[in-house]
Structures are given as C-alpha cells and as structure tokens.
C-alpha cells in the first residue's frame, strides 16, 4: 500500500514536472513573440529604431514627445498594421490547420491542402473583380472556403480509398479547380487596375495592409480564435473515433460544425487579409506537437504564438532578403515545401 502511494506520488510529480516544462516553453514563446514584434518594427525600407518606436507609441497615446512626422506615419499606418496582420494571419492559419487535423483525424491536412485557402481566394477574387466592398469580399471568401471544406469532406467519405489519402487528393483537386476559376477571373479583369491588385494579393503579400482593412478582418479572426481557444480541450475528444467521442458524452455533430466553421472563418479571413500564404497551417501545428505534445489544451495557444512568431519572421525576411520586397507566400513556400517532404519521409519510417 505504502509503495503504491509512493509510486503514485512519483508519477504525479513527473506529470507536474512535464506541465511546468510546457509552461516555461510557453513563456519563452510569449517573450520571443514580443521581441520579434519589436524587431519587426525596425526592419524595412525605412528602419525605425527602438527609441523611435517607443516615442511613436507614446505620441500615439497622447503623450507629448518629440518625433519626426514620417516616423509617426510609418509606425502607425504602415508598420503597426503590418506587424499585427502578420501575427494574426500566422496565428489564424496555424490554429485552423491544427483544428482541421483534429477534426479530420488526419495530420496531413491544413487550410491549403484541404483547398480552403484556394476556395476562399476564389470567392475573394470574384468579389474583387466585381468591385464589391471589403465586407462582401470577406463573406464571399468565407462562403467559398466553407463550401470547399464541405465538398472535401463529402467526397472523401464517399471514396473507397484510404481516408487520409482521399482527403488530400480531394483537397488538391478542389484547390486546382478554384485556382482555375481565379485564373479565369484574372484573365477577364482589367490589366491596369484589378489584375494588378489581384495578382499581388494572390502572391501573398502584406505590404498593402492598412489599418482599416486590418480592423475588418480582425473581427472574424479574433472571433474564430476566441471560440477555438475557449473550446480547445474539447477538440481532443473530436480527434478520437466518432463513437468513442459520443460515448464520452459529446454531441459530436454540434461540436464538429462549430469547430469547422470557426477554422474556416479563420482561414478565409487570413486569405482576405494577406492572400495565399501557404504551408504555415501544416508546419506550425507539427512543430507545436513536437514541442508541447498532442493535447489541444496546449496546442492551440502554442499554435497562436508560434504561428504568429513564424509569420512575423517570414515577413521580416520577405522585406529584407533582397532590395525589393518578396511576396511572403514565396518565402513560406520555400520554407514549407522541404518541411512537408521531411514529414512524409518521417511518416514512412514510423
């Protein structure tokens, strides 16, 4: 009996040690995110020193400080929205990727692989083509994104092949179809105005992000993030077998609809704000799982932080790698594709 008690204490202590280890890692992520954000204000065609950043912040809050007006404008209407957008898009894509992986019980899916990003970009492109206001673009992107998820799910469940494979294949098929529609829209648009706008946005770029656009995308994004953050422990149960989850007392249908809708809202808003930025939604959840384990209670906050941090860094790279700015989608593709290959190879071994 005594021995049993001792054994229990040992394993409880071990579990507690693991927990505090995760907590420390999480704190490191928070600190790194803040430092990277500060660093990102400085990077760019017009570098802002940390002192200028601090002064611009104070001045914006109504304090009387000496600052050159250009620094003020650059900070408040260019750098700040851009940094916020990069962080939020990174967080949104990573969290939605992690949730899709759980919902479909498939570690190889992400917003881009499921075709959600392509679907959302199709919706957005159509809306931009017709010159609709930004709100409409958001709604179009979300509806088309949601449609792709539903299609993907239905086709893959009807397929006789292995579910993992058919989901990935269906996703890429739907993605290709959506891209074809986008190409058609581009072909039909006015080369001097809409075409340019569309092309740059689709490459995935953050240099056009301004405060007003950011605010409008922030509402659905923060809503989606809040829902998924609050329900994060529940996601674990839905990653189990359907019947098993039900036997644990979960109304799986209701939760699945809520969670998939929230993730689609996230990926669609990310596409509206920054265009097609691939691979983040696949890469970050995998990195987070290797750092924090599989429990969604930790995975969701970790994905928010690491996803945001990663995209901030990628954006800094896009801004500073060459003299001219690179589209961020190009940078993430260069990082993501090799990662995906390593993932496939690792799965084969295991």
């Amino acid at each position: 009996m005594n021995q049993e008690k001792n054994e229990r204490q040992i394993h409880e202590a071990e579990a507690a040690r693991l927990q505090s280890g995760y907590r420390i890692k999480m704190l490191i992520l928070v600190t790194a995110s803040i430092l990277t954000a500060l660093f990102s204000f400085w990077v760019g065609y017009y570098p802002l020193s940390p002192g200028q950043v601090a002064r611009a912040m104070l001045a914006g809050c109504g304090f009387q400080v000496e600052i050159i007006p250009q620094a003020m404008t650059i900070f408040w209407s260019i750098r700040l929205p851009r940094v916020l957008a990069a962080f939020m898009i990174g967080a949104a894509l990573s969290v939605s990727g992690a949730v899709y992986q759980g919902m479909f019980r498939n570690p190889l899916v992400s917003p881009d692989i499921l075709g959600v990003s392509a679907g959302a970009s199709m919706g957005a492109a159509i809306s931009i083509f017709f010159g609709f206001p930004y709100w409409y673009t958001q709604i179009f992107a979300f509806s088309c994104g949601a449609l792709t998820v539903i299609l993907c799910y239905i086709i893959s469940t009807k397929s006789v092949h292995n579910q993992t494979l058919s989901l990935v294949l269906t996703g890429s098929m739907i993605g290709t179809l959506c891209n074809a529609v986008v190409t058609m829209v581009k072909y039909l648009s006015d080369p001097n105005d809409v075409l340019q706008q569309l092309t740059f946005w689709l490459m995935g770029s953050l240099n056009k992000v301004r405060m007003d656009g950011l605010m409008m995308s922030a509402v659905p994004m923060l809503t989606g993030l809040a829902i998924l953050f609050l329900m994060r422990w529940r996601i674990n149960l839905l990653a189990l077998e359907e019947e098993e989850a039900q036997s644990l007392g979960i109304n799986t249908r209701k939760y699945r609809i809520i969670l998939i809708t929230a993730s689609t809202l996230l990926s669609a808003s990310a596409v509206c704000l920054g265009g097609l930025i691939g691979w983040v939604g696949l890469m970050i959840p995998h990195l987070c799982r290797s750092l924090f384990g599989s429990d969604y209670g930790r995975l969701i906050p970790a994905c928010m932080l690491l996803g945001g941090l990663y995209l901030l860094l990628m954006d800094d790279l896009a801004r500073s790698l060459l003299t001219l700015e690179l589209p961020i989608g190009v940078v993430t593709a260069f990082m993501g594709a090799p990662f995906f290959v390593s993932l496939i190879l690792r799965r084969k071994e295991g």
Partner: protein
Amino acid sequence: MLIEIDSLSGGYGNGDICKEISCDLERGEILSVLGPNGCGKTTLFRLLLGFLPPTGGDIRINGRSALEMTKKELAKLVAYIPQHHAPVFAYTVLEIIMMGRASHVSAFDHPKPVDREKAFTSMEKLHILHLANQTYTSLSGGQRQMVLIARAICQDANIFVMDEPGANLDYANQQLLVDIIVDLAEQGYGIIMSTHSPEQPFSIAHKVLLLKDGKNAAFGPPETSITSPVLERVYGIEMEVVSIVDRYEKKHTLCIPLHG
C-alpha cells in the same frame, strides 16, 4: 434493476438488425452477449450506447429511459470500452484517461486538479501508474486495454460496455483482463461484454444473452441458458456441454463442437 432492455429493436434503415431483444442486469453482475458474427451484438451495443436510435422498445437505466437522456447524461451512467483503439495523435496515457472526464467538464472548460486526481486514482486501481506519462500509441494491446478501462472508471459511470474485451490480446493478457473484469463487478460495476467463447460465461458471467439473427435465443444464468440444444441452434453446429472437476475439486464447464 440497474439496466433493463425491453424488446429493443433497431438497425440501419433497411430493416431491423436487432429484433425485440430483452435482457437485464443488476449492479455487480456481468452479462455476456454470445452469438455468431452478424447476430446483432454490435448493433445491440450501438443502440445501448445511443449511437443508433432504436425503432422500438426501451432501455431503462435505474428506472429512467435512456432514450430521453442527453449524450452527457448517458455518459455519466454508461461507459464504452472499445476494442480497437489507435488515435491519430500521440497523447499521453494521462491525457487519454482525463478525456473520460468530458461529461463532467463544461464546453469551455478544462479538467481540473480534481479530475487529475480521479485519473490517478483509476490508474492506481488497475496498477498502471507507471504508464501515466508514457505515450499511449507506444503501448502494447494489453496495456491499451487497461488504459481504456481506467478511462471508463474515471468517467464515473457504473455500467461498462465492452466490445469483445481481449479479442486481440495474447492468452496471458486475456486471463489478466478476465480477472480485472471480475474484480470490477465485485466493486459494484455492471458489465456488459460480448464474447466469442461460449465457455467463458460459465466462469465469470452471472447472466448470458444468446443472440440468433438479431433475436433472443436464450437469456438467463449460464447454467440454464447455455445448453447443447441452444448452442446448436445459435451456431448451427453440433455441440456438447460437459462439466469436469479439476484437481482442486473446482467445477469447469466446456463447450465442445462435435463435427468431424
């Protein structure tokens, strides 16, 4: 009566698979469900666990109809211990067991330290504390089955539904599992399990339900229900039920197929 199944019918749309099945179970009893493949065992379990709506009949748990309960209410009474289990993600054993607390944790909440305590207590009961921080997917079949039983205990339900426990375990682990099931019944849990062995109920079960084409073939204590005429009708082969006495004067019952 802990659980009462009253002429329960149900299936998958094109005709009922289970037809007017009736049986019951008291606290501390083990009910074995026997029958050939496709006799409706799995469907019965799915009806019982609320995965499938019945087309007729009723299930009463502690006198209340289970058909009117929410998933959450049902989960506080009935726990399911599945046979095959391989989650996609590498959860630790502790995390898997804590998922048993889902019906006690609200939608926006997390398991609390109390839930963690419960998880450790259930692991302690099954002597699997040493697995607590290991990765579930790295465990053997027998260990996984133990973890799932611990999760059911952690769920605080008092009816366990087990789908062919031990079906993919080796002989020694099967015996260990049987001992644990008997032990759980002695602690007051009601256990409903399906099995492919017609002799197993004699040594452990208090009641046995034999199914043939989705209908009750026999229900009652094993001694009166498992007889050669019943077995021959259910399995369609000639069978003999014999008793032997071992060197410790303990009686055993064997079911022997007579063909060939």
